C-alpha cells in the first residue's frame, strides 16, 4: 500500500468490507456532544515552498533568549552551552530514538548513560542514579510515589517553597490518584518555618520534600529538615539544582534518601519549556525500589568492560502490575547533553559557573535594592535567584522592560503571588546588569 492518504473511494470500500455504513458506526460509544459537527477550519492547501515561508514568518515572531538579555529563571535557566556539546550530541550514533535494549549493538549509548548516572551520583553525593526521567517535576512525583511504597504511609510534607509547577504535577500524579495527600508547609521569610514543620510531623508521614535552592531562590536549612524527617521515619527527598551543587553541599552528604532535580541547566537549551531532564538518585539500599531504567557495568567473557540495562525485573515490562513504577522511558538525549556538559566543564568549571551565578546575582540584587521603589522581598541567603518587590505590578515591569530588550524575570503573579523572580546566570555581563538596573530605575 502506498504511503498516501486514502481517498473517499478507499474509505467506502474498507467500510463495506467490514460491513458498516459509516465511520461513525464504529465509534458509537463516544457521546455525540463530544464529536465535531463541522469541518475543521484549516488553511487552504499550500505548496511546500509556501508552507516553509509561512512557518518562517511565524517562527520569526518569537522572541527568545538570544534576542534579549534574559533574567528569567524559575526552573529553566539561560546558562552557556559550550559549542562542542551540540556537535557531539548531534552524532548520528546518539541522535536516535532507538532504545538500547540490545546491549550488543548499543554499547556507546549504554556507556553514555552509565557515565551520566555516575556523574549524577558524584554531583548529588548519592549511590545510585537512574538513566533519567522526563523532567524535574515528574522525578519529584516518582520520588514521592517511591517513598509511599517504601514506608507504606500516605502523607507527604512540603518543607518550604517548591516550584508551583512541581506542586501541580504532584497533585496530578499523587493526589488525583487518591494515593496520598501533599501538605504544604508555612514559610517564614521565604523559607520553611522549621517549628511549623515539626508540629506537623508524625509517624504517618511518608516523606518530607525540600527544594534547594527553593522556588524563591532562597537557601533552606536542609540539615534541620532532614533531621526532622529521619526522626519520624519519613524519607527525606531533596530536589537540588545541579549547578548550585558546584558550591552547595550535595544532598547525599546531608542524608537525602532520594535526590531529584531538573537537569535543564546542564547543557539543555531552553527549548520553550522542554524536553527537559529529570534527575533521580537514591541511597543504595533503595536500588530495587527506584523507577525508570538503570544501566550497569560488568565484564564480558574476555574481561572487557560491558554495559547493559540492569535490574529490569523492577520494570513494568517484566513485573507488569507489580512494577515499582510505570515509567520505562528516560530522556536519553538530554541525559547525553548533561554528561557532555559536565565532561566539558569538569569539576572546576562547574564550580566556576556556580560561583559566577552566586556573585553576579548578589551584585544585581544589591543594585536593585538601592533603586527607589524596589526592595528585596527576603533577607536570607540565596544562590542565583531572588525575589524583588517592584514599584508597579511585576507584569508591568516585565512588559516595559521587554521594550528595552530585557526579559526582566519571572512574574510571580502567575501563581497568585507577588513580586518579580530574577535569575542571573554566568552569561550576564556587568554591562548588561548595569543597563538593566538603569532601565528598571526609570519605571516607577
Amino acid at each position, binding site marked *: 500500500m502506498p504511503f498516501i492518504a486514502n481517498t473517499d473511494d478507499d474509505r467506502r470500500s474498507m467500510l463495506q468490507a467490514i460491513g458498516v455504513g459509516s465511520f461513525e458506526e464504529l465509534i458509537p460509544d463516544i457521546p455525540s456532544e463530544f464529536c465535531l459537527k463541522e469541518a475543521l477550519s484549516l488553511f487552504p492547501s499550500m505548496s511546500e515552498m509556501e508552507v516553509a515561508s509561512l512557518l518562517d514568518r511565524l517562527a520569526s515572531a518569537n522572541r527568545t533568549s538570544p534576542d534579549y538579555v534574559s533574567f528569567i529563571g524559575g526552573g529553566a535557566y539561560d546558562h552557556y552551552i559550550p559549542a562542542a556539546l551540540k556537535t557531539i550530541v548531534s552524532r548520528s550514533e546518539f541522535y536516535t530514538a532507538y532504545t538500547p535494549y540490545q546491549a550488543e549493538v548499543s554499547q556507546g549509548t549504554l556507556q553514555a548513560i552509565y557515565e551520566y548516572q555516575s556523574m549524577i551520583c558524584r554531583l548529588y553525593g548519592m549511590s545510585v542514579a537512574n538513566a533519567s526521567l522526563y523532567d524535574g517535576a515528574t522525578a519529584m512525583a516518582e520520588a514521592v510515589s517511591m517513598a509511599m511504597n517504601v514506608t507504606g504511609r500516605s502523607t507527604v510534607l512540603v518543607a518550604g517553597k517548591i516550584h508551583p509547577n512541581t506542586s501541580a504535577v504532584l497533585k496530578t500524579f499523587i493526589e488525583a490518584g487518591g494515593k496520598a495527600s501533599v501538605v504544604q508547609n508555612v514559610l517564614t521569610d521565604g523559607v520553611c518555618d522549621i517549628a511549623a514543620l515539626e508540629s506537623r510531623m508524625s509517624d504517618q508521614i511518608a516523606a518530607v520534600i525540600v527544594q534547594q535552592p527553593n522556588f524563591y531562590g532562597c537557601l533552606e536549612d536542609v540539615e534541620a529538615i532532614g533531621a526532622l524527617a529521619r526522626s519520624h521515619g519519613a524519607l527525606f527527598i531533596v530536589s537540588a539544582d545541579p549547578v548550585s551543587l558546584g558550591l552547595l553541599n550535595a544532598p547525599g552528604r546531608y542524608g537525602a534518601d532520594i535526590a531529584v532535580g531538573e537537569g535543564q541547566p546542564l547543557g539543555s537549551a531552553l527549548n520553550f519549556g522542554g524536553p527537559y531532564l529529570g534527575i533521580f538518585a537514591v541511597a543504595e539500599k533503595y536500588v*530495587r525500589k527506584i523507577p525508570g531504567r538503570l544501566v550497569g557495568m560488568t565484564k564480558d567473557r574476555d574481561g572487557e568492560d560491558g554495559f547493559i540495562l540492569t535490574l*529490569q*525485573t523492577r520494570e513494568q515490562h*517484566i*513485573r507488569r502490575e*507489580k512494577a515499582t513504577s510505570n515509567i520505562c522511558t528516560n530522556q536519553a538525549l538530554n541525559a547525553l547533553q548533561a554528561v557532555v556538559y559536565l565532561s566539558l566543564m569538569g569539576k572546576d568549571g562547574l564550580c566556576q559557573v556556580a560561583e559566577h551565578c552566586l556573585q553576579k546575582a548578589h551584585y544585581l540584587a544589591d543594585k536593585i535594592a538601592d533603586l527607589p521603589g524596589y526592595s528585596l522581598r527576603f533577607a536570607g541567603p540565596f544562590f542565583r535567584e531572588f525575589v524583588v518587590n517592584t514599584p508597579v505590578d511585576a507584569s508591568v515591569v516585565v512588559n516595559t522592560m521587554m521594550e528595552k530588550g530585557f526579559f526582566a524575570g519571572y512574574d510571580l503573579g502567575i501563581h497568585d503571588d507577588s513580586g518579580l523572580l530574577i535569575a542571573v546566570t554566568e552569561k550576564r555581563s556587568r554591562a548588561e546588569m548595569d543597563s538593566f538596573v538603569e532601565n528598571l530605575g526609570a519605571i516607577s
Partner: protein
Amino acid sequence: MNIPADLLYTKDHEWIKVLDDGTTALVGITDFAQSELGDIVFVETKPVGTELSEHDVFGTVEAVKTVADLFAPVDGVIVEVNEALDAAEVVNSSPYEDGWMVKVSLKDASQFDALMSAAEYSEMVGE
C-alpha cells in the same frame, strides 16, 4: 531433580519442613523452581511478625530476567528470616538446606493434608 521425601510441597513450588518442635516450619522453594528461575540475585521476604494466611505472598525471588512471588503454604506467622539470603545465590546451590527463606510459627496442622507429598510433587513436575 532433588525432591526430598521428608518435605511437603505446593503447586507453586514451595516446600515446607516441619521442625522437631512440631510448632514451627521452614519454607523455601524447590530445586525445580530454582533451576527454572536460573541465577537468583535477590530474595525479599516480609519481616518477622508478619501474619500469613495460606497462599499469601510472603516475598519475592528475583532472578536475572524475571521475578516470582513466594506463597505461604499454610497459615502462620513469620518468626525468622534467613539472613544468609543476602547472598541470594545460595538458593541455587542449596534450595532445601542453606537456602530456606522464612521460619513460620504454625497455626493449623490440618492444612498439611492439602499439600503434596514428594511423590505427588514429583509427578506434577514430570519427574
